[in-house]
C-alpha cells in the first residue's frame, strides 16, 4: 500500500508538472479523483481493511487526496491566469494611436480674463454689476461730466442709433457707474465688465471691445487707496513683483486722472518691442471720481469720495496670452478658440 501511494504521488508529481492546459489538468483529476479514479478506488477499498490498517492508511489516503486536489486547483488557477494574461495581452492597445476625444469646449479668452479679474477684485470686496450697451447721452456722457460741445467728446468716436431718443452705443463701461450710483447709496464697491463700442477700426483698434470698470465710493476713499487697489490687481493678474507707474492724464469723470502703466510683463522692464523700449505698458486709466459726477447722482462730494478705473480686456488678454492681433478675438477661428 505504501508503495502504491508513493507511485501515485510520483506519477502525479511528474504529470502535473508537465500539465499545460485545462483539459490535461481535468484528465489528471478524473484519473485520480474521479468516480473510478485511482485514489478514489483506493479510498473505496478502505472498507475492506482491518481497523489497524484503516488507522494507518485512512489518514494517508485522505492526505493524498487533499494534496492532489489542492495541487490541481492551484494548477488550474495558474493556467487560468496565464490564459487571461495571454488574452489581455492580445487585446493590448497601441497607445501611440490618436485618442478618441471627448471634447470639452473652451471659454473665450475675453471671458476668462473678465472672470479672473472679477475674482481678484472680489477678494477686495468688490461685487459685479452690469449695465446697458444701448445707452442715452446722459448716462454715457452728460452725467459723467462730458459737457456738450466740449473737446473731451473727441476722445470717444461714438456710434449713434436711429431712435427717437438718439440712443448711442456706449463708448465705455463708465455708464454703469451712473446706473449703480443712482440705484445704490454709498458705500458702493463694484466691478463692471462689458462690451463697448467706438467708431474706429484699424490694425490696433476694433469697433467692438471690452472694458472692466471699477468704482469705489465711501467716506475717506483716497488716491492712495486707488493706487494700492491697482497694484494689488496687477500683481495678482500678472506677476507678483509687477510694479505700476502713474502718469497724469485726463478723463472728464475723474479728477485727478491718471494713466497706469505696468512694468512690461514681456521683458520685465528692460525694454522690448511690445513696450516700445520703454519698459512700461499702458493698461488702464483711473482717478478720483469727479465731484460733478457725484453731484449728478445726488451724492455729497464733501461727505463721500471715490475712485474709479477702467481697463481694456483685449489688452490684458494680449499681455497674458501673447495675442498679437485684436482681430483674432472676433474672428473666433476654431484653432484660436481651442487654445484657451
Amino acid at each position, binding site marked *: 500500500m505504501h508503495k502504491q501511494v508513493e507511485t501515485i504521488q510520483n506519477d502525479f508529481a511528474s504529470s502535473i508538472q508537465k500539465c499545460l492546459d485545462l483539459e490535461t489538468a481535468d484528465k489528471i483529476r478524473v484519473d485520480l479523483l474521479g468516480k473510478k479514479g485511482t485514489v478514489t478506488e483506493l479510498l473505496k477499498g478502505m472498507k475492506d481493511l482491518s481497523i489497524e490498517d484503516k488507522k494507518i492508511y485512512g489518514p494517508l489516503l485522505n492526505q493524498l487526496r487533499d494534496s492532489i486536489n489542492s495541487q490541481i486547483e492551484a494548477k488550474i488557477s495558474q493556467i487560468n491566469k496565464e490564459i487571461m494574461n495571454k488574452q489581455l495581452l492580445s487585446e493590448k492597445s497601441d497607445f501611440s494611436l490618436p485618442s478618441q476625444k471627448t471634447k470639452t*469646449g473652451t471659454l473665450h479668452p475675453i471671458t476668462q480674463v473678465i472672470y479672473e479679474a472679477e475674482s481678484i477684485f472680489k477678494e477686495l470686496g468688490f461685487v459685479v454689476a452690469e449695465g446697458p450697451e444701448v445707452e442715452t447721452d446722459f448716462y454715457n456722457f452728460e452725467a459723467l461730466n462730458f459737457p456738450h460741445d466740449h473737446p473731451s467728446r473727441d476722445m470717444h468716436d461714438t456710434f449713434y442709433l436711429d431712435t427717437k431718443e438718439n440712443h448711442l452705443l456706449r463708448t465705455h463701461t463708465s455708464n454703469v457707474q451712473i446706473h449703480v450710483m443712482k440705484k445704490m447709496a454709498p458705500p458702493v464697491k463694484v466691478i463692471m465688465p462689458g462690451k463697448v463700442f467706438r467708431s474706429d477700426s484699424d490694425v490696433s483698434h476694433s469697433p467692438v471691445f471690452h472694458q472692466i470698470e471699477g468704482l469705489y465710493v465711501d467716506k475717506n476713499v483716497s488716491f492712495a487707496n486707488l493706487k494700492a487697489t491697482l497694484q494689488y490687481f496687477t500683481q495678482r493678474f500678472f506677476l507678483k513683483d509687477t510694479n505700476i507707474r502713474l*502718469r*497724469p492724464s485726463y478723463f472728464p469723470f475723474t479728477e485727478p486722472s491718471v494713466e497706469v502703466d505696468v512694468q512690461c510683463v514681456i521683458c520685465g522692464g528692460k525694454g522690448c518691442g511690445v513696450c516700445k523700449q520703454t519698459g512700461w505698458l499702458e493698461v488702464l486709466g483711473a482717478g478720483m471720481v469727479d465731484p460733478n459726477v457725484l453731484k449728478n447722482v445726488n451724492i455729497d462730494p464733501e461727505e463721500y469720495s471715490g475712485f474709479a478705473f477702467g481697463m481694456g480686456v483685449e489688452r490684458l488678454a494680449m499681455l497674458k496670452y501673447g495675442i498679437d492681433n485684436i482681430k483674432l478675438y472676433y474672428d473666433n477661428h476654431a484653432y484660436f478658440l481651442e487654445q484657451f
Partner: protein
Amino acid sequence: MLLPINWLKELVDIKEEVSHLAERLIEHSCEIDEIIDQKKKFDKVVVGEITKIDKHPDADKLVVCQITAGTNQYQIVTGATNVFVGAVIPVALDGADLPNGVLIKNSKLRGVDSNGMLCSEMELGLSDEAKGIMILTDKPKLGTPIAEYLKMNDQLLDVSITPNRGDLLSIRGLAREISAIFELPVKEIDISYTDKIKHDAPLEVINEATDLCARYMGVVIKGIKIAPSPEWMQNKLSKVNIKPINNIVDITNYVLYECGQPLHAFSYEKLADSTIVVRRAKNGETIQALNDQKVELTDKDLIIADKKVPVALAGIIGGMQSAIHDDTTDIVLEAASFNPSNVRKSSFLKGIRTEASQRFEKGVDFQNVEFSFKRAIKLILEICGGYVASDICDVFEKEPEVVELKLRPERVNSLLGTEIPKSDMISILTRLGFNVTNDLITVPSWRQAEVNREADIIEEIGRIYGYNNIELKLAPITNFEQPKDLSFFDMNKKIREFFTLQGNSEIVSYSMVSPDEHPAIMNKKPLVLKNPLTSYESVLRTNLFVSLIKNYDYNNRHLVADLNTFEVGKIYYSENDKVVEELHTGALFSSSPNKATTTKSQTNFSFLELKGICEEILTYLGIKQTKFFQNDIFEFLHPGNSSKASIGKDTLAVFGEVHPDITKFYGIKNKLFFIEIMPENIKKYISDKKKYKKFSLYPTVRRDLSFWIDKNVSFEQIVQTINKAKSPFLKDIVLVDIYDGKKYGDDKINFAVQLIFQDPEKTLEEETVNREFSKIVESVTKLDLIFG
C-alpha cells in the same frame, strides 16, 4: 505738439538731458509720444569736396569722383551730371540711413569701389524734388556734419496734450510747465515796440455778439512789405512742420506756436468803411474761405465782417476776399477770444479744423490775447517794416472774474491719502503760477479755463508732488450688501460651464451685423446705426443665431467642419419705439456633443438630442416645470423640427434644426442645430431652494406595453392617458422604441413603452403589479389603438 528743445531753451535755461526732461514731463504733466533727434536722420552725412572726376571704365553714364571730407578721402561713383571738380556737396557715408529711407553701404558699381553717395536735396528730405546733387555754394568747412550745416541738429519732443491742458499748446506754455517742474525761472518774451508815427488810419470795432466773443483786438499796420520771412523764423517753423509762406502769415503762425494765441491778418484796403463788425452770420450768407471752400453760414456761426460782407469765420478760417497778397501794404491784425463751444460747433458743422479752431475750442487766455497781439505787432514792425497806423482797438465787456479758491490742506491730504505739508502745497501752486495768500488761491489767467474747483487744485498738487511718490494704502475690505441681480452673473457662469462641458466653445462677436443676411434671420425690428463704419455692420443683431451661423460659415470656409459653439451676449430690438436689450445665450451644433471628431466627419445629431440638451440646461439652472410648444419665434429653424420651452407666457428657450434654406444660403452642406436661451426669462423661475425627498430602495418591476396608434396623437397625450389610471405605484414611463412601419397603413405608428412600478414601503407583489398594469391598459384603450 512738437517742442524743439532749442526753442524751449530761449525761455527756460534747462540743462537736463532730453530723455530726462521727457521722463519728468510724463511723470508730472503730459504724454510724450516720441523724442525726435533731428541729427539722427543726417547721421554719417558730411560736407565734402570733389577733388577729381574720372570716367567710369565700364559705364558711360557714371563717373568716379574722389572726395575729400576734412581728413578723410573717399571714392564715390555717381550718375549725377551736375558735379564738377571743386563742388562742395553733402556726402552720405557707409552706414547712413537717409531721410528718404535709403541705406548707404560701401559697394561696387560696375566693378568700381564706391564708398558712399553724393546727395540731392530730395534725398536729404529737404525738398520734394531735386535736379542733381545739392551744391553748397557757401562752402562750409569740409567734414562738417550736414545736420550742423543745415542747423537741423535740434531735438524735439512730440508732446501729446489732453483736452484739459490747452495752456500747454505753445512753447511759452510748455516753458512755464517745465519751469514749475524743475523750479527754474521763465524768461519773458519781448513784446516792446516803437509806435511814434501819428495814427492816420481809422478803425472801428463793433462787437454785436459779446456772448460769443469775449475780447477783440484790432490794429492797422501800414507800409509793410510782403516777402519771405527771415531764415531763423523759417527754420523754426519748418522744425515744427509749419510751411513758411510769407512774412505776415509766418509771423501769425510763429506767435500762435510761441504764445498759443491764434491771430489773423487781413487786408485793410478791402475792409469796407474801416469797420470790423463781430456778429452772428445771417442765414444764407456765404464766405469764400481761404481753403477755397464756399461756406454757407447760419445764425449759429460767428463771423468777422466789415460793414458789408463777412471777412472771416471767427476763430476758424479767414476769407479769400480779404486775403493778403504779395502787393498788400496795409493790414489789419486781429487777436480775439471766441466762445469755445461755438467755435467747436461751427468747425464741426463746416468740416473745417484749423490750428486756430483747435485752440479756441479749448479756450484761450484772456490776458494772452493782448500779449500775443503785441508780440505780433513787434515782429511785424521788425520784419515787414511799416508802422502802427491806428489806435489799438480793444473791445471787451469786462475782464473775466479772477478765480479764487480756498486751500484746505487737510482736504487735499485726505483725498490724496498723503501727508504733504501745507508749505509744500503752497510752493507747488506758486511754481505753477498760482498766487496763494491767506489760504486763498488765485488762478493764473492761463489756467482759468480748466482750473476752477478744489478738485482741480488737488490734481495740480498731486501731479507735481508726483503720483508715484504717494504711498499705497489698501482700503479696508468690507463686504457690502450684494446687488439683487447677483444670481444673474452666477447663472451666466453656469450656462457657460454647461456648454463648455457639452463640448461647445465660446465665441464673442460684434453686435453689429448686416441687414442683408437671409431675411428669415431678422426676427424683430432691429436698431439701426446712424453712422456705421461699413454697410455690413449697420444694424444690431436681434438674436444670437446670426452671429453663430456667420462664425460657422467663417470656420467652414476655413475648412473646419465640426464645430460646436455658443455665445453669451446681448441682443437688441425696437418694440413700440422702445429700445429692448436682453442678454441671451445661443449655441450651435454641427455634431453630437462630446463626440470624437477626429475620425468620422459627421456624427449624427438629432432633434431629440437637442431637446435633451435644452431640458438638461434648464434642469441644471434649477427649472423644472417647463413645457414644450411649437416654435413660433424663429423662422430660421426647421418648422417641423423645432420647439420652444416655456413657462406660462415666458419663453425660456427656442431650439431646433436650422432651416435647410438657411444652411443652403450660407453654402453649408451638413445639418445644423441651434438653441437660444433667454436667461432674463429664466431668472424669474430659478429657485435655489432644494428639499430632500425620501426615495425607495425596494425593487422595481417593469412591464412592457406596445401598440399602434394614429400619428397625430402626441406622446404627451399617451403619457397623460397612462397617468389617468392614477396608479400609485407607477414610478416612470420610459419610451423604448418608435417604429414607423406600414403594418396598419401610413398614418399609424408603433410605440413601445416600459412602465416602471415601485412601492416606496415594501417589495411589490406580482398580483399588485398585474392589477395596476390592467388599470393602465384599460385607461389607454380609450385611445384609438391596436395593441401589438
